[in-house]
């Protein structure tokens, strides 16, 4: 009798353990709990660009993943899925399986910031020239009428969406047009210009920061910084000591929500995101806001950046 009871208990324990095993390894796939540092979180509802982290956190979405565009594109290339992506145009179309972007939620013009004490020197050196074209020529040279060396930075175009956008803006400044493609990017004169431009500010200098935030704490490391109106508004610059100007030709960051083909973009989320962006210093979308180059050109720019790095 005792033996049968014991056998029953053993079987019951085995069933309970088996149920846990089944749930953990079969139904849930056997993975450890996901965490912020241990690979992708498949349950994340919304993936946001690092540049939009503050807006994203305010949307009230329970599962949010914030990462650089380069990381998201890398995950998508490895077959991961993204349910919704708050990003810039044309990044959704740069994925191997392009995502479909909704309407532009808000826009912000790309800009160039310098410490005030360098502004006059930059103007003097770059009169009548596109600012990025000129800054690229001067990269690494001594400033005239200002201390130190010309240190331009667009950020990390290999991983950051704003970095790649600003790199596109700088290259457009060199060519004097937004109409350039992979053929122009092979031009030897252009390559001679772009290499010192890319290499003057090592990426290690920018770890954890943007060109603007780095410039504000360390102008000896970056003193011609790519930025946007929205970032300037977010950090409270230009205020004391910072000058900003718009490079020619003009380009705008355009924030969008994107989803896999066939999936819906929740309208209420799009409305909330647009409102949050406007509150954060972004502009309402408009017809005259020149977009970034095509997905193909952006991918070519990214490849060029990584090759030169």
């Amino acid at each position, binding site marked *: 009798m005792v033996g049968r009871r014991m056998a029953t208990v053993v079987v019951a324990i085995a069933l309970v353990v088996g149920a846990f095993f089944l749930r953990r390894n079969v139904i849930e796939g056997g993975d*450890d709990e996901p*965490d*912020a*540092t*241990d690979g992708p979180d498949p349950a994340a509802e919304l993936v946001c660009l690092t540049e939009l982290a503050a807006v994203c956190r305010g949307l009230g979405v329970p599962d949010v993943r914030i990462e650089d565009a380069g990381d998201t594109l890398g995950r998508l290339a490895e077959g991961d899925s993204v349910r919704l992506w708050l990003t810039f145009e044309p990044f959704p179309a740069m994925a191997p399986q392009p995502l479909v972007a909704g309407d532009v939620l808000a826009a912000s013009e790309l800009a160039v910031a310098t410490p005030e*004490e360098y502004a006059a020197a930059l103007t003097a050196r770059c009169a009548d020239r596109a600012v990025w074209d000129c800054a690229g020529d001067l990269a*690494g040279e001594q400033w005239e009428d200002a*201390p*130190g*060396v010309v*240190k331009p930075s667009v950020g990390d175009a290999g991983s950051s969406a704003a970095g790649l956008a600003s790199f596109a803006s700088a290259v457009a400044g060199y060519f004097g047009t937004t109409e350039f493609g992979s053929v122009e990017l092979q031009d030897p004169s252009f390559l001679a210009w772009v290499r010192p431009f890319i*290499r*003057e500010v*090592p990426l*290690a200098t920018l*770890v*954890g*920061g943007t060109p*603007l*935030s780095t410039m*504000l*704490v*360390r*102008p*000896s*490391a970056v003193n011609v910084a790519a930025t946007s109106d929205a970032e300037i508004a977010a*950090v*409270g*610059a230009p205020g*004391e000591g910072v000058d900003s100007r718009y490079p020619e030709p003009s380009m705008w960051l355009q924030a969008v929500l994107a989803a896999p083909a066939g999936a819906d973009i929740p309208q209420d989320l799009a409305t909330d995101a647009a409102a949050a962006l406007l509150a954060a210093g972004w502009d309402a979308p408009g017809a005259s806001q020149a977009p970034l180059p095509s997905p193909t050109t952006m991918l070519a720019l990214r490849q060029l950046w990584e090759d030169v790095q």
Partner: protein
Amino acid sequence: MRLRRPGLVVIIAAALLAAACAGDDDDDASGPDSSDLSDADPGDCVVVDMAVSSEKIALLTELADDFNSSDLAEVGDQCVFVRPRSVASGAAANLIVDGWPNPEVNGEPPVIWSPAASGWAGIVNQRAGQILAPAGTPFMLTPLVIAMPQPMAESLGWPDEPLGFADLATLAENPDGWAAVGHPEWGPFRLGKTNPNYSTSGLNFTVAEYYAATGKRAGLTTEDLARPAAVDFATQIESAVVHYGDITMTFLNNWFAADLRDTALTYASAVAVEEKSVIDYNLGNPDGVLSPGEEPRVPRVPLVAIYPEEGTLFSDSPFIVLDTEWVDADEKAAAALFEEYVQQPENQAKVLEFGFRPNNPAVPLADPIVAANGVDPAQPTTELEVPAPEVLIGILDSWAELRKDARVLLVLDISGSMGDLAGGDKTKLDFAKEAAVSSLDQFKDADEVGLWVFSTDLGGPDPNVLDLVPVAPIGSQRDVLAQQIQNQRPTNGTPLYAVTEQAYETMLEGYDPTKINAIVLLTDGQNDDDEPSDDEDQFAELIQSLQAGSEGSSSQPVRLFTISYGEEADVVTLRAISQATRAATYNASNPATIEQVFTAVISNF
């Protein structure tokens, strides 16, 4: 008892008071920091051990304390406990590569490593052949500067003229020293610089030295390091070094002590430090840590920060979450919370209070980074690129060859108490012998090293001391030294004062101005020579003699580095002896730490 000479009372009192005021044990070079949280009980929390460079231990301890008691310190349903510990950047780099051995001596292996500068992570990854230290977000900034007493800087044209490494090289090369600029009373140009293998300011200074030698600001290569002009330039600057060492606080404390006696201008002419240290010094707190009851004292001669015109490097205090086998996912998640916490504007404001530049642009530069404290918030204007890891390692290798030669006498206590068991079946002397032998490899062949042992009734011509190996180039006698150290056995008493005086006089007789002249004295006890009645006289005379030989423009400094070994060592007396020669004392109260301490001591050469 009565002293024969009333003046001796004053000398003894002053020496002991100065030694005591120089800080408690925690201020000794390489000593543990008791103000940290490293011994606190974390309960059942997820523990985030941190290894942080010494200059920010006070700040991070305060931040960790606040964080641990806040609602933010939670991962899932578990609390988080951040536990910072002070570990020199170079020492931590070595420990990480070695798998962080001996936690009982080195502390628990860290989850977060915050060296003074990101360059150390490159060195770790290069040496390990894998990424153990991924890029970390900078926490705060402070540039490398050349600290110089204001009158000296002014004599070189500061603040109107830009100054840099070329000026240092010129002064170092000139046999007239400061007389060349009209100040013979300041003697030769003397440079204080830490050992680049251990200290970030030493590493950054050496990197900047090579950049200045090549005229580059970026892209330094291993080929550049081998160029004869670069080697000559670096050798010239290194020739002016007073001694090296593992922490800048040694120089700053010595400078401050010299300032008290109005001899600051002849102790050192310039010291490579971080900007924050200039602020601390001028505010009367040279090591940046105010011990309980310690009152800041504004120095007679303030320092000014020279931002080298050739460019400089920043210490950026990265928060590196290590990718090692001892760090798990919960610890990484907990570490991320603390990292986010320290970047918040209110906490970045604390960074500023401690004299560092915040990394958050929302916190603008303000007091104490102001001209009144000897620094310039608008500087530096030229920044140097951190070289590639393989170049950094090349710089360390190159420096090991061209650094200033040393002439060192090792003086080891072999008194009876050294036979006490100190762990397992090993005696204190066993541990000391192992550490001393192992330290011999840190000397380069051209360094001259000798060995004395001391006790009482040793039976030789001098009953207190045996001159076992005369001071001579170690390249030809490394094995002899090792063998003689190994042969030692515990004997009798501890004639500390007599032997110290004797060793000092001997080294002074053979003084070589082209070398770092020094004595390393290890003892586990107090003066015990069977004649206690004259101890005070002996001590006072010793201090007087050491001070007289170490001060003044024409002094021939023989630095006396002391190691207080075991619980019974006379820490205050040994500190006074070291301080009298503007050297440093090291605390190895736990015999298990003696190897670590020996390494730190030999880093002075």
